[in-house]
């Protein structure tokens, strides 16, 4: 079986409203995060991936299957929507059990998988209570349990961290990471860019229905040539280091750190920059304590490629 999710020139229009336009993607196993402003097409992309909507043009294949082969396709995909829907009056236990029955499990197997899923999200004790009495975080968890209960190979999670307290968020992230490490496709849409950095193997940036970038955060950052890389160097004499780097005509911008014990330098060629920095350190001109990329993260990529107003630059 094919091990990737493939979008080939996929477009989706809702009447005259653009959902996504000419998206071509190939997503391997691991954690992939969809990043984009509201209305950018993230949910449409997820709906296409889960077979809930059909593309207006193009072709989608999820691990070699299309939504036309419904039983196999849907048993392979777990979807956690962002909407807070639960059938009224049901308990957590019933919600998961009925979902598994809808997936076509026999009752014995459904009971076994329900127990397993509830334990995974640590809701075993609350399983017998009505979902209506759950906190927001518990509701988010039970949705996640519903998405993973039938052992899908692709897990699509729309804003799964919303409403979770820091502890529950850490637990959920740990679960995603574990599933991703085990070879599952975990696709997450999130606005929380700091967490995107922590959990993602790769990001897909989308805005206005158009794909802006995809790949690992580092790869994507390196492709943004018009925004030179920024590096934070912790050292004793940052102003001296800045002057040296400018003297060899390599840096395009320097900014002292607020505490005066470091400097942010921008460079168009990060490899050459590191070589020169090593040379300066080797000569003992400046004692360097630490070197770290300052804008090699999801937040910076988002700012550079999409902008704070959501319009791609």
């Amino acid at each position: 079986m094919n091990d990737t999710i493939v979008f080939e020139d996929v477009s989706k229009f809702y009447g005259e409203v653009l959902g996504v336009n000419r998206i071509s993607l190939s997503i391997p196993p691991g954690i992939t995060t969809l990043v984009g402003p509201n209305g950018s097409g993230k949910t449409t992309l997820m709906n296409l991936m889960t077979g809930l909507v059909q593309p207006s043009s193009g072709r989608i294949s999820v691990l070699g299957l299309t939504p036309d082969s419904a039983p196999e396709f849907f048993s392979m995909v777990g979807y956690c929507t962002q909407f807070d829907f639960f059938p009224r009056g049901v308990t957590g236990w019933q919600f998961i059990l009925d979902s598994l029955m809808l997936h076509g499990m026999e009752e014995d197997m459904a009971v076994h998988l329900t127990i397993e899923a509830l334990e995974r999200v640590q809701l075993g004790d609350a399983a017998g209570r009505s979902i209506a009495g759950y906190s927001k975080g518990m509701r988010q968890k039970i949705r996640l349990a519903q998405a993973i209960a039938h052992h899908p190979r692709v897990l699509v999670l729309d804003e799964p961290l919303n409403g979770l307290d820091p502890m529950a968020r850490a637990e959920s992230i740990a679960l995603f990471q574990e599933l991703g490490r085990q070879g599952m496709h975990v696709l997450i849409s999130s606005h929380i860019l700091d967490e995107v950095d922590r959990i993602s193997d790769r990001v897909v940036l989308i805005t206005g229905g158009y794909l802006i970038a995809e790949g690992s955060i580092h790869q994507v950052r390196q492709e943004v040539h018009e925004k030179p890389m920024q590096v934070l160097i912790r050292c004793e004499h940052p102003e001296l280091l800045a002057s040296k780097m400018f003297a060899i005509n390599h840096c395009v911008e320097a900014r002292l750190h607020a505490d005066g014990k470091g400097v942010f330098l921008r460079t168009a060629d990060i490899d050459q920059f590191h070589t020169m920095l090593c040379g300066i350190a080797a000569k003992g001109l400046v004692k360097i304590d630490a070197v770290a990329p300052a804008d090699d993260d999801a937040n910076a990529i988002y700012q550079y490629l999409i902008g704070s107003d959501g319009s791609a630059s």
Partner: protein
Amino acid sequence: MAVYKHNYSAYTGSITPPWKRVAAIARYAFLEAWSSKITIGLFVLSLLPFVLFLIGIYLANNPLARALINSQGPQTIAIDARYFAKVLSSQCWLGFVLASWIAPRLITFDLADNALPILLSHPVSRLGYVSGKFIALFGSLSVVTWVPCLLLFVYQGYSSPQPWAAANLRIAFGLFAGAVIWIAFISILCLALSSWVKWRVVATGIIFAAMFVPAGVGGIFSAVLRTRWGLLLNIPVMMSNIWQRLLGAPAPFNDRLSLPTGAIAVMLGLACFLFIAMLNARIRAREVVRG
């Protein structure tokens, strides 16, 4: 880079046939429909005419009971096709009231809660989803329509001193067929209209309006153009025609309210086609979030 062992295993066990998944939706819907106290109240109300008609049959077949209540004549109430036409009509209209309450609970809650994406991300098609809801509604309405009607027929057959049931099997068929046509029609009508409204109470109001407003429009049409074809918008009159013919009962109204069976069938078929198109347009897992 770390090397991870890809040991995640997807579920590869057996899965149930599609009808079982539809049955799961139907069971869900059935529980939803009957979880309301108002549903129970309407159900009890729907059985009151049944009890009255049952008493009528009892009195008709029991001279001693008639004597006790000082009733005159050998049989004051004739238990025939006309009697069962009244039974069928009253049960069916109470069934409509029940449907107008239940159907919005089955659909509008799902729409209001954006439930369709999560439900349809299971291996259940849109047809399966609607079928599950339809089965739940059809089953609920059966309990107040053809089931009590046939129970009364059986009771009459049992109580009658003459071999009544065998000679009147057409009534039994008419009761069953008439009720099934009606509940199938109103089930699809109520589901279709409920799918276009997110507020349950409004949906109930619209269902009543859809039943009676076209009848008024049809009446105006008939009066202005001096034709009886405006009655093709009058569902109560059309159904009365069908019930009367299925039961073999004499027409309860004059010829001006009589319509050809073929024309009624075409009209009901067109209406069902419209309702299916409405369901097709609305029952989608579309989840567009903008702004």
